[in-house]
């Protein structure tokens, strides 16, 4: 409607929850080497974050091979989880930028700002990005921290390559 194009694609991102077990992990464990992401809820369930499918989809499910890869990686770190049953699995649609970094930016249209394109990231960055977004709107210019995440980087070529930096599948 505003005549502005965004370099975003929407893909299903999956997560899983296991049956509850006694306390075993007291922090979020992430391995970039095998791409595992697991924590334990207060109820004792393991909460496992999986990756995105490679293709555009709005189905909110995702494929079994993504789950298979994720479980394989978790078992590399924790072989003792091998006989755990998964209670549930779901998929949500994430909007992802070509460089896998978000857009926190003013635009060429006056009064129009974007905080989007978080892809697989975002949950832990929500408060911080909210502060920066508020700063950007209030001052009509970005804070030094979110300046690199401007929407113009796809034209200037100054990408913030999270694909390369994180070395995991986004």
């Amino acid at each position: 409607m505003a005549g502005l194009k965004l370099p975003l694609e929407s893909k299903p991102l999956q997560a899983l929850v296991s049956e509850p077990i006694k306390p075993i992990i007291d922090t979020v464990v992430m391995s970039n080497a095998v791409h595992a992401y697991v924590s334990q809820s207060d109820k004792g369930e393991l909460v496992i974050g999986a990756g995105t499918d490679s293709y555009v989809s709005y189905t909110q499910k995702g494929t079994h091979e993504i789950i298979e890869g994720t479980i394989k990686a978790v078992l590399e770190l924790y072989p003792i989880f091998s006989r755990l049953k998964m209670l549930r699995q779901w998929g949500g649609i994430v909007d992802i930028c070509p460089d896998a970094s978000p857009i926190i930016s003013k635009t060429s249209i006056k009064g129009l700002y974007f905080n989007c394109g978080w892809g697989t990231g975002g949950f832990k960055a929500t408060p911080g990005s909210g502060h920066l977004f508020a700063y950007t709107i209030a001052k009509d210019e970005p804070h030094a921290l979110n300046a690199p995440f401007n929407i113009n980087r796809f034209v200037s070529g100054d990408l913030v390559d999270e694909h390369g930096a994180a070395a995991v599948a986004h």
Partner: protein
Amino acid sequence: MFIIKCPYCGERDHSEFSYGGEAHINRPKKPTELTDDQWAEYLFMRKNIKGIHYERWNHSHGCRRWFNMARDTSNDKIHSVYKIGEKPPV
């Protein structure tokens, strides 16, 4: 999970295939004459449509050949598969 009918091999599980992004995006004929905005459009701007999406797939664990597909991204139902160079079905 869905079944893809490779135009060369027939029906196979989609895990045999690799996604190649939106189809029918032509490389600029005169790349040296493009502005930065035009490059950004070619490299990064995609339709990201909810509905019939024309896209490239490669049968990477099979015949390794590329082809095009029209898939409804709202339910992953495949409407048609057609070869590279062929016009997309309406």
